[in-house]
C-alpha cells in the first residue's frame, strides 16, 4: 500500500482488485472493486454487531445489547413519530437497515487509508433517486390524482396558484438529488478537510525541531476535527433516515 498521498482526492479512487472477463457478457458490474469489498465489509460488520448483541434471549440486557437497543429505539421513535400506524411498523426494518448501513459505512470510512462508500456520489444519488421513485409510486398508488394536491398548499390565494405549483413541483423533484447529494457532499468535504489539514501539519512539523514541538497544537485541533467527523457520521445517518421517513409520510398521508 502506498502511504504517501499525492492528492486529497486520491482517497476516493476506486480500484479493481479482482476483475472478471467473458467474451459473451460484460462482467464489469460484478467485478470486485474497492466499493464492493467495503460494501461487503459493511454488511459483515452490521451482522457481526447484531450477533455480538444477541443476548441469548435473556431479558436483562448486556452492555453490547444496550448499545444496539438504543439505536433500535432511536430509529423506532423517529419512524413512529414521522409515519406512525401500521405503515410505520411495516417500514421500520427498511428504515433501521438504511440507518445502520449509512452509519457503519460512515464510521468505517473514518479509519485512516480506508475507502468512503458514501462519498461515491453515484451511489448516494442512486439511492436517493430510488427512494424518491418509490415514494412517488406509493403516493400515486394510494391517492391517485389527489397525490398532485401535494403541490398546492391549502389556503393559497388563486393568483398565486400557478407560481406556487411550479415552485412546489421543482422542490419535489429536487428532493431526488438533494437527499443523496447532502450525504455524499458532507462525507466528501469532511474527508477532504482531514487530508488537507493533515498534509499541512505534516509539512509544518517537518521544517525543524522547533516546529515539530509546536506541531502539537494543530495536531490537537485535527483530533477535534476527527471527533467532529465522527459526530457527522452519526448525524448524516439520522438526517438521511428522518428525511426518508418524511418523504414516505408525504406519500402516505399527504399534507
Amino acid at each position: 500500500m502506498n502511504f504517501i498521498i499525492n492528492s486529497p482526492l486520491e482517497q476516493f479512487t476506486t480500484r479493481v482488485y479482482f476483475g472478471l472477463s467473458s467474451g459473451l457478457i460484460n462482467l464489469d458490474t460484478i467485478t470486485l472493486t474497492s466499493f464492493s469489498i467495503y460494501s461487503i465489509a459493511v454488511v459483515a460488520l452490521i451482522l457481526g454487531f447484531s450477533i455480538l448483541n444477541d443476548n441469548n434471549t435473556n431479558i436483562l440486557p448486556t452492555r453490547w445489547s444496550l448499545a444496539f437497543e438504543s439505536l433500535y429505539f432511536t430509529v423506532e421513535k423517529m419512524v413512529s413519530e414521522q409515519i406512525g400506524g401500521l405503515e410505520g411498523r411495516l417500514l421500520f426494518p427498511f428504515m433501521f437497515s438504511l440507518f445502520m448501513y449509512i452509519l457503519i459505512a460512515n464510521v468505517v470510512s473514518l479509519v485512516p487509508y480506508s475507502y468512503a462508500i458514501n462519498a461515491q456520489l453515484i451511489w448516494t444519488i442512486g439511492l436517493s433517486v430510488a427512494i424518491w421513485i418509490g415514494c412517488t409510486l406509493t403516493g400515486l398508488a394510494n391517492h391517485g390524482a389527489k397525490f398532485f394536491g401535494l403541490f398546492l398548499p391549502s389556503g393559497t390565494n388563486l393568483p398565486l396558484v400557478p407560481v406556487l405549483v411550479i415552485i412546489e413541483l421543482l422542490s419535489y423533484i429536487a428532493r431526488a438529488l438533494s437527499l443523496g447529494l447532502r450525504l455524499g457532499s458532507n462525507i466528501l468535504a469532511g474527508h477532504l478537510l482531514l487530508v488537507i489539514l493533515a498534509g499541512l501539519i505534516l509539512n509544518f512539523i517537518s521544517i525543524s525541531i522547533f516546529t515539530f514541538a509546536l506541531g502539537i497544537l494543530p495536531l490537537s485541533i485535527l483530533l477535534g476535527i476527527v471527533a467532529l467527523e465522527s459526530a457527522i457520521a452519526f448525524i448524516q445517518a439520522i438526517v438521511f433516515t428522518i428525511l426518508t421517513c418524511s418523504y414516505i409520510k408525504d406519500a402516505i398521508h399527504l399534507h
Partner: protein
Amino acid sequence: MPQLVPFYFTNQIFYGFASLSVIVYLFSIYILPHYLEIYVTRIFITKT
C-alpha cells in the same frame, strides 16, 4: 474527481443495492423480530 469515472457506476450501484437488500432481508426476517420478542416479554412481565 475520481468518483465521476463512469466505468465504475454500474458496479457501485449493483453492490450498493445488493448489500443494502441483504441487510434489509436479514434484519426484517431474523434479527429485528428476535429483539421484538424480548421487548414484548419485558412489557408482559412489567404489566402483569
